[in-house]
């Protein structure tokens, strides 16, 4: 067990440090991942040797920058099995990608009374843009409920899909770790003529993702959760949908011809990339894709499954600790509550032991209400975490119970 992957910690210099006098145990990966040397070096090389604006200059550095920027797009396209690099649109993050679909596609093709199907487990980034669109054009929002086991309740999927024009669901829950059966839902959505948008923020970093097999029409994710810098994300979309969509923001680089009173737009992907983009960050995402691909996403997935199973097993041994989410077939985000100790107090005590976790509502307040808790603590694993760190987490949780006077 746990022998299928080498120890990758040496690739992440930030992990080798003391926090509050204890070795850092970084278990907040669902919020953002750390960055390997390969990505850090790529950023530095860009800024030191070929920093220039893209798609503009007829000079050597600009050509180098443009090539690297577009090569990264091609790498990302291969990584998620897009049909062509032009289907990969650079955004800032998953939130911006979802907002782009709301503004560019839904705002144009949906009308008052059309139904958008979401779920109770969605991140705020997949709720608020649709509420805003509802206010603008009067669409109707419908929600798949979450079962006590932390799964989407799909027992009446056909009923839920009646009249639906767009389905937008997360692939993997950032709170529960649940892996949703996207391929199955996509098939049913397409059968009623609906478009399928998938929030892949928590899946792309942790498992092989093939947008074709998933049956997605749009797929959104962030770079910073998969070893790349902040400020770069992706919206993948089927070419025909991108072609028909309105641009989101106007400005330089997204146009074909500009007159004083009107303009024509560039083809996708540039139609959606107004202004000077996050060049270094996009190239950094390309380097992250190379790094992850060299390890192999299938190996990352299987290692994380084993480490998650180990963590769940150890956590279950703590009296008064409750895990919110499924036990198996799940990702590495583990939400829990400990009887008598508020998650913020837990987080402060764990931090004193060098353990970084997240405590809060995880941008999923409706899901917290469904779970009946104001917030949870969350430990989220990545492939550079090791079993020893689970031991430190467990020890720190016992310490918290001691501080609060619960004898364990």
């Amino acid at each position, binding site marked *: 067990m746990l022998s299928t992957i080498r120890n990758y910690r040496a690739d992440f210099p930030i992990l080798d440090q003391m926090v509050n006098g204890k070795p850092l145990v970084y278990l907040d990966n669902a919020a953002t991942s750390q960055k390997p040397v390969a990505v850090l070096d790529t950023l530095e090389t860009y800024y030191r040797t070929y920093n220039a604006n893209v798609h503009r200059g007829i000079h050597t550095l600009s050509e180098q920058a443009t090539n690297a920027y577009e090569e990264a797009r091609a790498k990302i396209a291969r990584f998620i099995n897009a049909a062509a690099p032009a289907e990969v649109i650079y955004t800032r993050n998953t939130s911006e990608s979802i907002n782009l679909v709301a503004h560019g596609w839904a705002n144009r093709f949906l009308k008052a009374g059309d139904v958008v199907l979401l779920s109770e487990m969605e991140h705020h980034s997949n709720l608020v843009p649709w509420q805003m669109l509802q206010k603008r054009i009067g669409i109707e929002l419908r929600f798949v409920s979450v079962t006590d086991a932390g799964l989407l309740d799909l027992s009446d999927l056909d009923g839920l899909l009646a009249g639906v024009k767009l389905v937008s669901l997360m692939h993997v829950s950032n709170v529960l770790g649940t892996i949703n059966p996207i391929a199955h839902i996509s098939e049913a959505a397409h059968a009623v003529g609906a478009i399928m948008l998938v929030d892949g923020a928590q899946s792309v970093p942790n498992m092989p993702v093939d947008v074709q097999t998933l049956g997605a029409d749009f797929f959104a994710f962030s770079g910073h959760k998969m070893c790349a810098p902040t400020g770069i994300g992706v919206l993948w979309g089927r070419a025909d949908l991108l072609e028909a969509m309105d641009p989101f923001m106007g400005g330089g680089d997204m146009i074909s011809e500009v007159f004083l009173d009107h303009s024509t737009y560039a083809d996708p992907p540039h139609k959606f990339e107004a202004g000077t983009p996050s060049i270094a960050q996009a190239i950094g995402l390309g380097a992250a894709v190379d790094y992850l691909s060299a390890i192999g996403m299938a190996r990352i997935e299987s290692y994380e499954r084993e480490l998650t199973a180990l963590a769940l097993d150890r956590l279950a041994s703590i009296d008064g600790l409750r895990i919110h989410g499924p036990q198996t077939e799940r990702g590495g985000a583990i939400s829990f509550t400990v009887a008598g100790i508020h998650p*913020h107090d837990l987080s402060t005590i764990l931090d004193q032991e060098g353990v970084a976790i997240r405590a809060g509502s995880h941008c999923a307040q409706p899901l917290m209400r469904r779970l009946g808790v104001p917030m949870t603590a969350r430990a989220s694993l990545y492939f550079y975490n090791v079993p020893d760190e689970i031991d430190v987490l467990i020890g720190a949780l016992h310490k918290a119970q001691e501080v609060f006077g619960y004898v364990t």
Partner: protein
Amino acid sequence: MSLDSLYQESILDHCKNPRNYGAIDGPKVAIHQENPSCGDQIDLQLVLDDAELIQDIKFTGHGCAISQASASMMTLAVTGKTRNEARSAVQTFRAMITKGEALTDDLEELEALQGVRKFPVRVKCAMLAWNALESLLNG
């Protein structure tokens, strides 16, 4: 920074057995406040008599140990104080939590919370009840 300085026994005691927890029957002034960033909430009620003395003060709420203990300790500290004395107690407590300034003798029980100053992200937890009290007294 030691945990003992943050989670002192009296804080944990107030957290587990909050004093003056509940609602006041009859005429009173009331306020609801929360820290949006962490979700901590408090409902604070009090009765000022004709001489502007705090005759009764009660709270309900949920949140971390620091916010709940601070609220409980506050109710003990300001009962029987005048409006102006209670206002000045808020200022003294705030100066202790944010700048490490000394407490007046009448507030010495609150020393248990002085460890919070070393955990800047938790200062807002300790201040929630006091900010609510200040709003109520100024309102």
